[in-house]
């Protein structure tokens, strides 16, 4: 996302900083990879349907073939002990990166008991109870919106 911002706002000046922030917040409310969502909006705005296809081609199509290339290498050499060891090392580190992402996102919420409760509920439902994602998101998102609206209404 920082790269996308530098390219779209600072270098090409396709968007102002405020427009970029606005699109990111739209991309965050909606499901799907954030950067893909933002690029779809920018693509549509400047070049219509062709812009959307250009955005998806650059963001997804090219990396897709790179990933598949690595997948083929992995399928061929994945049983070699050293290669397998390296992949397990990367997976262990990758798990640490995901945890770090979650912790960084949680940092601004530390003071809010309400936010902490929903973090624990979301984590517990998916990681501990292993409940399916769809009902968990529907129920928790609805509850969270109601509680947030109720708390704000009392102020």
């Amino acid at each position, binding site marked *: 996302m920082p790269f996308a911002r530098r390219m779209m706002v600072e270098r090409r000046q396709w968007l102002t900083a405020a427009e970029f922030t606005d699109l990111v*917040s*739209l991309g*965050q409310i*909606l*499901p*799907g*990879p*954030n950067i*893909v*969502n933002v690029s*779809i909006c920018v693509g*549509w705005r400047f070049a219509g349907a062709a812009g959307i296809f250009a955005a998806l081609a650059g963001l*997804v199509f090219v*990396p*897709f073939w*790179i*990933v598949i290339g690595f*997948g083929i290498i*992995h399928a061929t050499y994945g049983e070699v002990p050293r290669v397998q*060891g*390296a*992949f*397990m*090392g*990367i*997976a*262990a*580190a*990758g*798990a*640490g*990166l*995901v*945890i*770090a*992402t*979650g912790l*960084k*996102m*949680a940092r601004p*919420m530390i003071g*809010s008991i309400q*936010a902490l*409760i*929903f*973090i*624990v*509920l*979301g*984590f517990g439902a*998916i*990681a501990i109870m*292993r409940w*399916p*994602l*769809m009902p968990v*998101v529907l129920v928790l998102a609805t509850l969270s*919106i109601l509680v*947030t*609206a109720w708390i704000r209404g009392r102020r």
Partner: protein
Amino acid sequence: MKTTDTLLLMLGQFALMSLFAIGGANSVLPEMHRFVVEQQGWLTHQKFAELFGLAQGVPGPNMLVVALIGYHVAGLPGALVCTIGLIGPSSLLTFLVYRVWDRFRGSAWQELIQAAAAPVTVGLVLATGYIVTMAADETWQAFAVTAGVAILTVTTRAHPLIWLAIAAALGALGLL
């Protein structure tokens, strides 16, 4: 199961996940694990962790782990079907909402939904971290790498590729 049945099943499941991927791919990984490892048995726990690691180490959006899962299950058609399934519906929804976005921009409920969804998303991302840790780490050394990378990423500003490279080297040396 016939290949076309498998492809249709994958397309349907990932398309459904797409619409619930609040916060992106990091939120839906546990659901993918539930589906491909626990329900269908297409991948082992360990293979899932390996493919996740592979996607982390490759440039591009990390949601491309779906392409690897699809490739592993059903070759190139599988990779295409899973990727289109995961990106298609959310992209279409974004496009449709963007066209009416001007009317709602900056309204109070927009900020309310964002504030309300954020903690739920954090819970899902941490759940992904937990699931992947349990799949990837079989030794205490591997757990130590996961914990170390998490702590160093939160406390320093070093590029994440450094930690991936060090961990890959440790793994290749047979230390994990």
